[in-house]
């Protein structure tokens, strides 16, 4: 197996998720290379050796300065064609998913995504993907090469094995349509808002709250429990609560002892950010909400009545 791992970078660091995938790739076989693609990223390339890459390709070009997918498809397509990789692996992210799907379409290759494990079975690569709200685990494979895969975030921990990698510079050629999209404003790390990653107890709210001012109910409950308040993507996008508190695929991944989800339907986008929580309590009016499939305690009812009562009961206990 000749594997290429796409390493994503952000603010001068290689992203942890992609280093985790590289670690796993190196455990599955020793012919593992990595690629970094960006502007000023060449200096990051040698780090990949510590996580098991034998070679690292550095596509370092101003045209790759913005984290946009299509120019990176051009870089990876050239690399696969020139070097003959039979497997290309990605750690899930907004950027990596778009790169992987574009690459699959260009190469006519098979892409399996949202994998929570990868293994070799009789020399064949097998991926495992949870489906139907994680009620079933599907084993997936590939026909032909290259095999492309996106691994669910947080699946593999990066671990250093201490090797050195040979860094190779890559000439970057970008197609016209790949340069169509342009970045006007880059996201910057938000310093505002409380840190939810270290909280022992999290009370999270979603669209079911009905309006932004209802977050007060959650803030009071969180205070009574000594916890922090988090939010879903839908309400953060709607401007109800700060981005720094967002839990899910494009937000934070948290694992508090207790996670109380109020008015959250529990779409996969949210679930991947909180499923490792110790105990999950869900309050939702809709008995069919997906969150009930993975809540430890599911409460079908109106959060606007239940949450204040619970807060009061906690206060009464002193």
């Amino acid at each position, binding site marked *: 197996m000749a594997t290429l791992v796409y390493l994503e970078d952000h603010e001068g660091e290689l992203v942890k998720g992609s280093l985790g995938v590289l670690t796993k790739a190196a455990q599955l076989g020793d012919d593992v290379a990595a690629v970094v693609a960006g502007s000023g990223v060449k200096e990051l390339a040698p780090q990949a050796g510590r996580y098991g890459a034998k070679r690292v390709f550095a596509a370092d070009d101003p045209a790759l300065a913005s984290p946009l997918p299509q120019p990176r498809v051009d870089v990876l397509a050239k690399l696969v064609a020139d070097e003959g990789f039979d497997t290309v692996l990605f750690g899930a992210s907004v950027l990596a998913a778009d790169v992987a*799907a574009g690459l699959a379409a260009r190469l006519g290759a098979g*892409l399996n995504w949202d994998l929570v494990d990868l293994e070799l079975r009789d020399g064949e690569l097998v991926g495992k993907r949870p489906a139907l709200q994680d009620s079933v685990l599907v084993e997936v494979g590939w026909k032909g090469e290259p095999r492309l895969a996106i691994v669910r975030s947080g699946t593999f921990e990066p671990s250093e094995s201490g090797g050195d990698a040979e860094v190779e510079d890559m000439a970057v050629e970008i197609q016209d349509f790949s340069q*169509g999209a342009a970045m006007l404003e880059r*996201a910057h790390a938000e310093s505002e808002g409380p840190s939810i990653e270290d909280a022992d107890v999290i009370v999270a709210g979603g669209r079911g709250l009905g309006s932004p001012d209802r977050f007060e109910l959650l803030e009071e409950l969180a205070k009574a429990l000594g916890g922090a308040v988090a939010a879903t993507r839908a309400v953060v996008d*709607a401007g109800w609560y700060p981005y720094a508190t967002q839990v899910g695929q494009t937000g934070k991944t948290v694992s508090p002892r207790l996670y109380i989800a109020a008015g959250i339907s529990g779409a996969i986008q949210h679930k991947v950010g909180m499923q490792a929580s110790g105990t999950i309590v869900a309050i939702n009016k809709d008995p069919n909400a997906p969150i*009930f499939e993975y809540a*430890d305690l599911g409460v079908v009812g109106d959060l606007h009545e239940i949450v204040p009562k*619970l807060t009061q009961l906690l206060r009464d206990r002193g």
Partner: protein
Amino acid sequence: MKVAVLVKEVPETSARTRIDSGTLRLDRSGAAALNPFDAHALEEALRIREADGDGEVVAIMMGPSGAADSLRKALAIGADRAVHVVDDALAGSDLVATARALAKAVSREEPDLVLLGQQGGDSDGAVLWSALAELLQLPVVSQAASLELADGKAKVKRQTEYGYDVIEAPLPCVVAVSDAINEPRYPSLKGIMGAKKKPFDTVSAGDLGLSADEIGEAGSRTVVLALADPPARGDSVRIEDEGDAADKILAYLSERKLV
């Protein structure tokens, strides 16, 4: 302005969905509906048409003949025209095979803008737009929390792991919208009645110039090997609120020493 909206049919959230252990495909025999995530893409298209005062919204779906009702619902909500790509040869298409069929259907329409929802409500697939844009050779922007059109360009606020980017792409382009971008409307009675008179094209793989080896299982490079049970999460408890839910939650938490 002509906007193409890609929609699909997914099992109703209340339906007990399963994967057929024989074919290893999603069993689509139960109650089905328009993918709720696609309703946001359709809503955005309708708002663009309304702001424009002119233009056309074409809803395009690939799916079995039984899915036609969901596509009609898109017409009832407000799309002007529907294109249903239906062919037995498409069954079992994976991401790239699906993107090939949809790319052909979209390019026939020559839209100014192609909109998709954030994910399929069934497979949790969230990568189609990028494969589609690649085959159409158009710029793509995903995870759009807002979309503005001006001067022949789409300006998108994209949410990533790090916050919000602002990205601009020239039309025509492909944009995948988040489910927070808008609040989708419901079909009105007038809309439902009017939908019956709207153009509804049914096209086959052959009509789109697709060969058998590009689509379906033959055109797919991924396979489902087997089904397994996921790791168990432990026993879960379900209660209905009868006025005492708060007490029950507290008792549950106390028992587990969580408060």
